[in-house]
Structures are given as structure tokens and as C-alpha cells.
């Protein structure tokens, strides 16, 4: 018996020794939804994909665009409808095959295919052509000066690998489809996928043939990624040293973590807005007055003070301040006014209220479920009897996106830093190419036309004027009830040097140790 105990102790000791200083144990509330880099346009999914796959361009910490797989890019002088991108030489995928322009053509077409959630980012693209082995031409419908902004989350896959494994198109997550790429990867990124167990643990190891070896610090040799949904368990894991970095320190535990020796919290405003969406076609919420009533029934200041403990910026528009088109006026949120809201409900013919279900994620945004619960109470005061249905995001998103939800929570980050991205996903009528995250039923032909016109407007002043017009229409329609912009709080060991990225996308090749 004693012998056995000794053996166990030795085994435990051995397993702790193998975790060297260069291994980063990384945790956050929810897991990546799929490893297919085009199937889901979602922050946590991209965060893992960014370690394995590369994009043509990337943003540095200040938000400006810098080279990644593309070394330089320019719109042709004689034809501004064509962007010409020069690719990096000598890049190989994890399986050893070379990266060239055919892979770019394939990946961009794949990202525009059915089932892709990235297609709105490429809705202005007419054609993608290989000019030579290391040059790619992207032709747009009309000159699109901002196209390159849309490529920072556009991951590059290997054409040969995708063909061999029959993953020529992304799988549709909302339809519960999967394919080989859901669990397997072949990227050019700094890390190679070693093993993955969904919602449990994903192990990555440094790519020995990484093209950025001499460009970035590359101090991290292995990554162990563990989703921990419970806030208390996540903090306990950081406090006990079981993990090295958590991307979402619960707001109630900020003091506890930052006052602990050996731990630090890095804080930054996040490029992400959290809001509720409403069905504008059926049910009581199809009445504009009801939507307006619900908007002023939300006590945003109380949510900030109690639920978010000051770690949020309440807003009146579904746009973070990082985004082109943001103004102080739009950001003004209405006063919380129960009486006015009740009056609007009476005018709308719902003096006695109505029943509705609120679909809410419980592992995606900071205190998402608690915000929804608070909203249940606030809605009850104006007679709206809300049933709260909180679920993990993997189940929530298909419901929210599918159009079955009457009242749902969503958060939106804006990687392009431009309003067009919000419009194309959340405001445009839901069609094959655009509006995939607009299940509200809101559809306005004039607004749709203005959104499309943004893609080929070269006069930036005229473009900004159109953006302002579209925002005015969105604010009038009130299909969304903005709540706040999030604040990022990354908790980590104090020997780690890692800047908080405003899109909440850690790139571990940049991490260094003190």
C-alpha cells in the first residue's frame, strides 16, 4: 500500500516537473465552438484559431494594420477595383506543404461559401485570382478602399489538405453539422494543435517551422487551453497557480486577483458592445412603441454599478467607441424611466403587458446571465413577463441567429473598426450573403442599398455621411437595445509580459516573460 502511494506521489511530481516555465496554461469561460476557421465568426473561436492559422494581415496592439502572411498590399493605380497582395515567401503549413497564392484564392472563396460566417466581410469581393505564385489580386465590385481592414480575421487554409480531407466548404454550426476541420487543423500559425477535447482541454505546441520565428519573441513553447465556465472556479485556478492566464477575471474578483502576490490584472477598454435583440416581425415586439418602452425600462446605470461593478461603459448605440462612425450623441443612452415606458406600453395596447422568453448565453460575455436576470426584473416593472432561458453559447448562438428568438442577448466586436461591419452583419436584411446575424427581421431596402454603397464609396466624407444616415435609421427602428461596452480584464502571473489586445485576441507569439 505504502509502495503504491509512493509511486503515485512520484507520478504526480513527475507530471508537475514536465510543465516548464514556457508552457502557458490559458483559461477563459467558454471554449472555441469549432476549429474550422470560417464556420463561426466568434471571438473565442477566433482566439484559438489565431494560434494555429494565420491571416493575410493583422493588427498590432495599437490597432494599426501590419503584415502577416501578406507582406504588402495596394490598390492598383490604373484600376482601384483591384487590390494586389504580395505574399510572404517560404511559409509552410504544419504538414509541410508550401503556402502560395492558390491557397489564398481557395481560402477566400471558402470564406465566401455557404455555411461560412465570414462572408459578410467579403461581400464586396467579385473575384480572387492568383497573379503569380506569390501574388494575389482581389477584385471588388467598385473600389473598396477599406477591404484590407476586413482581412484581419480571415484565416488561410491549405488547398491540398482541404481537398484531401473533403473540407472544401465550412460546416454550418447552426445546423449542427461537423466536418474534418471541426477537430483537425493545418495552418501556418505559431502553434500546432496536439490534442483537443471539446469543453475540456486543448493542447498546442510551438510550430518548429514557424515563419515568424525570428520576427516575434516566441517564448511560449506549449499552450494548454482549458475552458472554465464557473467564475469562482476560474479565479480559484488562477489563485492556486493551476493556470497562468485567464482572459476574463470576474468583475467581483478584480481586487482579490490584483492584490495577490505574483498575480496582476491588465485592463483595457474592449472593442465589444453587448445588447439585446428583438423580433420586429412577429409578436408584441413588432410594435415600435413596445421596443422603445423596453429600451427606456433598462436601468443601464444600475447594471454598471451592481452587476458590472463599474467595469463597463453604458451606451445607447450598438457600436464601441473604436469604430468609425461613433459619435458622442449616438453613445448617449436614454434615461431610465419606468413611467414613460409604461405610458408607451399603454399606447401600444399592451397596458397589461405580455409574456416573452429571453435567450441568453451564460459563458460568453462578462456576467451575461446576471445582466439578463437584471433585465427580467426591469422588464417585469413595465408588465413584460420574461422567462429567462440561459444556455452555454454553443447552444445559445444557433437560437439567437436562427430567428426563433423573440428577445435575445448578443455581443458584437468590430475587428474592422468600421461601422460597415456592424451594418453588414446586424442591420442588412438577412440574405445569403449579408445580414447573417440579423434575425430581428428588420428589413429596409433603402438602408440595404446604403450599406452596399459603402463598399465602393471612395470619398470618405460622403461615406461617413452615409454611415451617419444608416445609424439614424437603426436608432429609429430600435430593433436592438444597447446595454454597454465591455472592459477587458486579463489576469495573469506577474512574470508574464502580455499586452491586452482590444479585440480580446491574445497572440501568444508576442508573449514574453520577465
Amino acid at each position, binding site marked *: 500500500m505504502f509502495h503504491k502511494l509512493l509511486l503515485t506521489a512520484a507520478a504526480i511530481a513527475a507530471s508537475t516537473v514536465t510543465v516548464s516555465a514556457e508552457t502557458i496554461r490559458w483559461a477563459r469561460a467558454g471554449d472555441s465552438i469549432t476549429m474550422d476557421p470560417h464556420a463561426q465568426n466568434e471571438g473565442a473561436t477566433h482566439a484559438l484559431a489565431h494560434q494555429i492559422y494565420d491571416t493575410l494581415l493583422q493588427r498590432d496592439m495599437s490597432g494599426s494594420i501590419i503584415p502577416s502572411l501578406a507582406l504588402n498590399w495596394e490598390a492598383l493605380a490604373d484600376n482601384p477595383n483591384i487590390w494586389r497582395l504580395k505574399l510572404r515567401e517560404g511559409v509552410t503549413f504544419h504538414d509541410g506543404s508550401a503556402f502560395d497564392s492558390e491557397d489564398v484564392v481557395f481560402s477566400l472563396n471558402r470564406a465566401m461559401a455557404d455555411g461560412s460566417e465570414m462572408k459578410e466581410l467579403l461581400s464586396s469581393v467579385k473575384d480572387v485570382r492568383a497573379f503569380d505564385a506569390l501574388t494575389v489580386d482581389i477584385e471588388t465590385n467598385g473600389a473598396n478602399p477599406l477591404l484590407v481592414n476586413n482581412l484581419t480575421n480571415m484565416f488561410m487554409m491549405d488547398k491540398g489538405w482541404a481537398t484531401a480531407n473533403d473540407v472544401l466548404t465550412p460546416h454550418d454550426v447552426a445546423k449542427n453539422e461537423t466536418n474534418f476541420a471541426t477537430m483537425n487543423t493545418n495552418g501556418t500559425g505559431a502553434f500546432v494543435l496536439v490534442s483537443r477535447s471539446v469543453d475540456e482541454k486543448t493542447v498546442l505546441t510551438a510550430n518548429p517551422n514557424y515563419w515568424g520565428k525570428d520576427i516575434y519573441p516566441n517564448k511560449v513553447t506549449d499552450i494548454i487551453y482549458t475552458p472554465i465556465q464557473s467564475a469562482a472556479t476560474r479565479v480559484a485556478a488562477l489563485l492556486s497557480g493551476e493556470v497562468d492566464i485567464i482572459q476574463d477575471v470576474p468583475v467581483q*474578483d478584480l481586487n*482579490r486577483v490584483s492584490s495577490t502576490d505574483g498575480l496582476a490584472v491588465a485592463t483595457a477598454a474592449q472593442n465589444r458592445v453587448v445588447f439585446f435583440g428583438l423580433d420586429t416581425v412577429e409578436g408584441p415586439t413588432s410594435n415600435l412603441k413596445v421596443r422603445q418602452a423596453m429600451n427606456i425600462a433598462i436601468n443601464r446605470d444600475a447594471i454598471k454599478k*451592481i452587476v458590472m461593478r463599474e467595469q463597463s461603459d453604458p451606451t445607447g448605440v450598438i457600436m464601441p467607441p473604436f469604430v468609425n462612425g461613433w459619435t458622442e450623441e449616438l453613445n448617449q443612452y436614454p434615461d431610465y424611466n419606468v413611467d414613460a415606458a409604461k405610458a408607451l406600453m399603454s399606447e401600444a395596447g399592451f397596458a397589461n403587458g405580455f409574456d416573452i*422568453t429571453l435567450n441568453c448565453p451564460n459563458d460568453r460575455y462578462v456576467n451575461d446571465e446576471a445582466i439578463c436576470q437584471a433585465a*427580467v*426584473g426591469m422588464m417585469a416593472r413595465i408588465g413584460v413577463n420574461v422567462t429567462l432561458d440561459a444556455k452555454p453559447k454553443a447552444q445559445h448562438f444557433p437560437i439567437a441567429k436562427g430567428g426563433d428568438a423573440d428577445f435575445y442577448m448578443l455581443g458584437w466586436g468590430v475587428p474592422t473598426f468600421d461601422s460597415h461591419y456592424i451594418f453588414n452583419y446586424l442591420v442588412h436584411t438577412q440574405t445569403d450573403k449579408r445580414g447573417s446575424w440579423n434575425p430581428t427581421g428588420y428589413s429596409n431596402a433603402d438602408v440595404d442599398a446604403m450599406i452596399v454603397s459603402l463598399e465602393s464609396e471612395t470619398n470618405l466624407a460622403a461615406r461617413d455621411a452615409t454611415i451617419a444616415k444608416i445609424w439614424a435609421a437603426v436608432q429609429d427602428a430600435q430593433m436592438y437595445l444597447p446595454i454597454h461596452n465591455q472592459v477587458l480584464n486579463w489576469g495573469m502571473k506577474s512574470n508574464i509580459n502580455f499586452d491586452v489586445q482590444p479585440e480580446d485576441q491574445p497572440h501568444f507569439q508576442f508573449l514574453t516573460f520577465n
Partner: protein
Amino acid sequence: MNRFLDSDFFHDFLRAPVALISFCVVLILILSAVFAQFIAPTNPFDPASLELMNGFTPPLEANMFTGEVFLLGTDDQGRDLFSAILYGLRISLFVGLMAVTLAMVLGVMLGLIAGYVGGWLDNLIMRLADIQMTFPSILIAMLIFGVARGLLPPELRYEMAITVLIISIGLSEWVPFARTVRGSTMVEKEKEYIAAARLIGLNRWQIMIRHILPNVLGPVLVIATITFALAIIAEATLSFLGVGAPRTEPSLGTLIRVGQDYLFSGEWWILLFPALTLLALALAVNLLGDWLRDTLNPRLK
């Protein structure tokens, strides 16, 4: 009544301080749950009455925004914890009681049939029981809960949450009842009064229900008491795991789950008071069950 007051059972009860105290604790908890709406200062299930700004008020301290004072403090949504515990206790007790009743009816019936009829039916029922015994009952409850949730249309899911809880816990706890009743039935059915009943032409059901059942109920009551405590814990566990009572209508387990998130940040009361209540309830019922078992078992005297 006089017969009861003169009985050995009551006499023993008065001499057993543990049983007396446990009984009082259970009685107080049951009464406060039953009369919750008269005792509780607020209705925690009415979302319109919640004031978010009251959130995280410590016990007996004035809230810094609203100035309101709460006996046991408030939770993250400004819900008065004292009221929430009383209402939560009601859910816990109700689910426990109904689940035990379901398990008891099911287990006793199956046990009677298995023991009296015997043969392949006995084999079938007892092998089913054996199979179920190999899985922890909380796992079975979660399985049934998950399947039921999947089958129900979404709009019914929350209305049915409590019913589904009762069924899933009830179905996972029938085995001990069936086993005990089967054993006692097999002993009883060989006795002369059963032979007599058979001779005068009573059918199987009449014999099982009217003659055997009353004679095998003693141990069933003991098991029922212990299973009641198990069912309360099972409900709390399911709710703690987030698959039981919804957060807008919290049971004790849901309150503990909420409180857990705020333990590190020093808001200890959200976890502590519901946990203490659950502890007191489960412990008292268990001690009462143990005492019942010892008292009703002549061999231990």
C-alpha cells in the same frame, strides 16, 4: 391519539434528545416553508419587486444606495436572502416530498409484485434494480432530467422544471424500496394468514394490498425518511449544477450556486445562509431517519 402517546415509540422519542431536536428543526423548517408568504418580508419570485441597486447588501447593514436593511443581506440581484431562503426551502421540501412519494409508490408496488408473484417477473424487476444500483442515483437523475428537457418544447421547459426534477429524482430512488418490500413480502407470503386469505378466494391484488402491504410498511417509513434527505440533497445538487430550479425562482441549491461565484470577493452571506439551511434540513432529516431505523428495528433493542 392516547394510544400513540402511551406507546413505546413515543416514550422512546421523548428520551432521545437527538430525535427531539431533529424533529423540532424539521418541524420549524417545514412550517416556515409552508407559511413562507406570511413570514417572508418580500416575494423573491416576483421579479418586479427586485431592486437591482439593493444588490450585495451585507446582513443587517444599510445598503449604500437605497439605505434598506436586510436580515440576511441580499444576493447579486438585490433579492432579500431571508425571503429567498424561505421560498427556496419550499421548493426543496416540495421536490423532496413528491420525489420520495413517487419513489415509494413505485418501489413498493414493484417490490410487492416481485416478491409475491416471483418467477420471471421477479427476476426482471430485480435485475432492473441491480442495473440501476450500479449507477449513482444523481447520474440517473441527470440523465432523466436531460432527456426530459430535450423532449419538452422550449416554452414548457421552465414551467415543467420542477415536475421534471421530481420525476427524475423519484425514478432514481425507487430501488431501496423495492428491495426491502420484496424481501419482507417473500417472508410474509409464506405465513398462514396469507394462506387463509388465499383459501377464502381473495385475488392476488387484494392479498397484496390489503394483507401484505400493511405488514411490510415499517421499514418503508425508515427508508422514506432517509430517501427524503437524499432527495433534498439531489435537488440541491442538480440546481447547483445549473440543471434544476431556474435562477429566477431559486431553490436552496440554486442560491448556493449563485453564492459560490461571490465567495472570493468576500460576499460570504449569499453562499453561507442557504448552505446552512440546507445543512440543517438534511442533517435533521437524516438523524431522524437513523433514530427511526434504530427504534423500529427490534433486533437493535
